[in-house]
C-alpha cells in the first residue's frame, strides 16, 4: 500500500511510513488541540514539495485561516499555488434559503469541480461537525458512511477534522456516542490536552487506528516550535 508522508517531524515514524494513500483519516480532538493547524501543516508540507492540497473550511473564513497559519510560519505563498483554501463559510448567506442536503451537494460540487481543474492529492474537511450541522444529517451513520465512500472515490488522502467535547481530565479517545464515524474511517488521529502538574498542559497525539499498519498506539507529545514535532513523552 503506498503512503503519503506528513512532513511532520516524528509523525511518519509513529504512523510507520505515513498516511495510507487515498484513505479517510479522522483528526479528532477537543477545541484548542491544534487539529486544524496540524491538518494544514500536513497540506502545507506536501504543497511545498509540489503535491496539491485542498483545505475546505466550512466555518472559518479564508482570511482568518491564512492569518492564523501565517502566524504559525506556514505561509501559503511558499507553496507555489499548490495549496488552495475553499471558503464555504462565505456561502452561508446565499445558501440560507436552501435546504440541508444542499450543503452536501454544494460541497461535492466544489470538491469534484476542483479535482478536475486543480488535481489535489490531499483534502482537509474542517470540520465534519460543521458539515453535519449545515447539511442536517438525519440518518447520521448512513450519511457519514455515504460521505466517506464518496471521499474515497476522490482518490485523495482525506483528513476529516472532528470536534470532540472538551475533556478536563485529558482522558483517552472516546468517540461521540451517537455518531460513530470512527468505525467508518480508515484511521483516527486523536489530539488532546493533558495536564502536566498543577499548572501545565501538554498537547498530545495518539494514532488510535490506522488500517493496514502496525502503528505505534502510544500517546506522544505534539510540540510546536517553528513547526510541528511529534516526540516521545518524557516523564
Amino acid at each position, binding site marked *: 500500500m503506498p503512503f503519503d508522508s506528513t512532513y511532520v517531524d516524528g509523525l511518519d515514524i509513529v504512523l510507520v511510513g505515513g498516511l495510507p494513500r487515498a484513505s479517510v483519516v479522522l483528526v479528532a480532538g477537543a477545541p484548542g488541540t491544534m487539529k486544524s493547524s496540524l491538518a494544514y501543516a500536513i497540506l502545507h508540507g506536501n504543497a511545498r514539495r509540489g503535491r496539491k492540497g485542498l483545505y475546505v473550511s466550512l466555518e472559518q473564513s*479564508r482570511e482568518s485561516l491564512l492569518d492564523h497559519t501565517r502566524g504559525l510560519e506556514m505561509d501559503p505563498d511558499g507553496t507555489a499555488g499548490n495549496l*488552495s483554501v475553499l471558503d464555504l463559510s462565505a456561502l452561508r448567506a446565499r445558501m440560507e434559503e*436552501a435546504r440541508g442536503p444542499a450543503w452536501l451537494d454544494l460541497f461535492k460540487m466544489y470538491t469534484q469541480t476542483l479535482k478536475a481543474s*486543480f488535481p489535489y492529492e490531499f483534502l482537509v474537511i474542517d470540520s465534519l461537525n460543521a458539515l453535519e450541522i449545515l447539511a442536517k444529517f438525519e440518518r447520521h451513520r448512513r450519511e457519514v458512511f455515504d460521505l466517506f465512500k464518496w471521499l474515497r472515490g476522490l482518490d485523495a488522502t482525506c483528513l476529516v477534522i472532528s470536534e470532540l467535547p472538551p475533556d478536563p481530565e485529558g482522558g483517552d479517545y472516546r468517540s461521540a456516542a451517537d455518531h460513530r464515524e470512527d468505525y467508518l474511517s480508515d484511521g483516527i488521529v486523536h489530539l488532546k490536552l493533558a495536564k502536566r502538574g498543577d499548572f501545565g498542559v501538554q498537547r498530545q497525539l495518539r494514532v488510535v487506528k490506522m488500517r493496514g499498519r502496525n502503528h505505534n498506539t502510544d500517546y506522544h507529545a505534539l510540540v510546536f516550535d517553528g513547526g510541528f514535532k511529534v516526540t516521545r513523552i518524557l516523564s
Partner: protein
Amino acid sequence: MSLYLAVLAAGIAVDAWLLAYALLRIRRTLAKLTLVALLLSFVVMSAAFLGREYAGLGAEWAPVALWTFVLSHPLAALFILVAVHGEALLRRYPAVLLILAPAPVLAAFAPPAGYDLARAYGTAPLNWYLVLCLALPLGEAVAAWSRSVARRSELFLLLAGALVLVLTGPVYGFELEATGLAEAAGSNPGTPLTAILFAAALTLANPAPMRRVPRGAAWDPHFPQGRLLLVDEARPKASAHYFAAAVAGGRPGLKLVRGSAAPVAGHGSLAVAALAPVRWPGSVVLATASEFLARHPAGIVFLRDLAYLVTLAGLPAARDALQALRRAAAGTAGTVVASLALLTPEERRDLLAIPGAASVRLPDPAAEIRAILEARFGAGAVHLLQSFAAREHRRLEDLTYEDVPAVETFLGTAMAVLARAPGDEPMVLGWRKALDHASLDLDRFVRRTLPEAAAGPWASEVRRAGGEELVVRASDYWHGKELDEMLHFAANQMNRVRYGDRVRGAFVQVLGRTGEHLFEAEVRRLGKTPADLGPEDVRRLAASAEAIVRSLEAAIDVASGRADLEARAHRLRAMLSGMTEEAGRAV
C-alpha cells in the same frame, strides 16, 4: 539501358504502392477489385520482364511475362468500363466479362503460334485483341467524358490514363521496333503514370464512408422499385418520414446528408453518409449511391439535401448525377429518392423534367397539422400549437410527423387545463369531442402511405367548413368569450409550468444538484413555487443568477477552478437570457 532499368524498377515500386493504397483506401468494391488486379498484372509483367532481361531469369519465365502482359490489356479495359459505368456494369452488361475470355486462349496457343513478348503488338491475331482491349475503353471514356457534366474531372483522369497506356504500349512498342530496339519492347514504362491517374480518378470519386447494413426487406408500401423518385415538397420532412418508415420496415436505406466527413452513422437497416464540400460532389454522390445499390440491390438511397448538391456542383451537374442514378436504379428493386426541398421553382422544373424520373408532390406536415387543428378548433388553435412548439424548443414550421403524438398529448393537457376553469359541463364534453376528432384526423394523416399522401386530399388545401363541425361554440358556452381567447388562456397556463421546468433545468444542467437547491431557494425568495413562475419571474431569476454564481466563485482561490465556474456562469446566463428574450416576446 541502366536508365530504362531504373525507370521500370521505379514503376514496379509505384504500381505496388498504389496497389496497397487501392486495397486500403478505395471504397468502390468492383472498381477496387479490377484496379487491384490490373496493378498486380502490371507489377508481375514488369518484374518478369526485368528478371528476364537483366536478372538472368530462365526461359520458363517467358510465358509468365507474356501472359501477364496480355492479361493486363483486358483488365485495363474492364477497369475503365467499371469506372465509367459504375458498379451496375456487370449486372446490366454481364457480357462485358467476355473480354477476358481470349486472354487464356491466346496464352495457351502462344508457344505453338510463336508469340513473342517483344513483338506482341506486331503479331496477328494477338495484336488485334490487344488493340481492341485498349480501343474499346478509350472510346467509352471519350464518349462518357464528352457527355457527363457531373463526372467530367473523374472521367478525364480515366481518359488520360487510357491514353498513356496506348502511347506507352502499342505506340511505343511500334516505335521501338521501328528503331531497331525490339529487345526493349514487351514492357510498358507508362504503367505507373496510368496507375496514378486511375487511382486518382477513384480517389476523387471515392464513396463517402458508410456502415454495412443487413440485407433486410425488398419492398415497402411507399416507394416504387427501380425508379428515381423526385419528391416535390417545401421542406425535406415528408420524404424523410416515408424513408424512415421504409427503413423501419427493414428495407436497407442510405441517407445522404450534407456535412463534413462525418463518422459512419446509422442503425439497423439505415446507413448515413455525409456529403462534405468536396471539389467533385457529383462524382462522390454517384459513387456512394451506386456502391450502396450494388451492395443492396433492393435498397433505397435518399438524397435529402439535393439542394446542397445543386449549390456545390451546379444544376447541370446535379441533373447529370440524378440521371446517372436513375440508370443505376433501373432494372433493380432499388429506389433513389431525392427531395426537391429548398430548390427554386426554376430548378424544380428543370429536375422534374428528367426523362424517366417519377415525381410526387407531398404536403408539409407542419401546415397539415395546423390545418387539421384549425378545422376542429378554429383560428385559435394556432395559439396552442405555438405554445407547444415553444415548449419543445422548436419553430412552428419545423413540426413534423414525429411530433404528432406529442401534439396530441399536449392537446390533452390543454384540455385538462380548460376543464379546470369555471365553465359548464356541455362545454367540457364538447371540447373532448373536438379533441377526439382532431386526434383521429392527426392519426389518419400520419398513417397514410406515400401514394395516399400524394393523392390527397390535404387538409391545408381543403377550404375549412367555417366551424360547422365544431360540436361546441365558444360563444354558446363560455359566457361570450371567443374561442381563441380560451385557447390563449390554456396556452398561457401551460407556459407558466414550462418556465418553472425550464429554469430549473437550466440550473440543474449547469450546477448539478446544487443548481436544483439554488433554484428552489431563489424561487422561495420570490415567494412562489416553480409552477407559478411566469415570464416576469424568469427575468428576475436571470438577474439573480449572476449574483449566485459570483458568490460561488468567491469561495475558490484557484484560478482554474474560478474559470470553470465562470464558464458555468456564462452558460447559465446564456440559457436564462434566451428564456428572458422568449419571455419578453410572450409578454
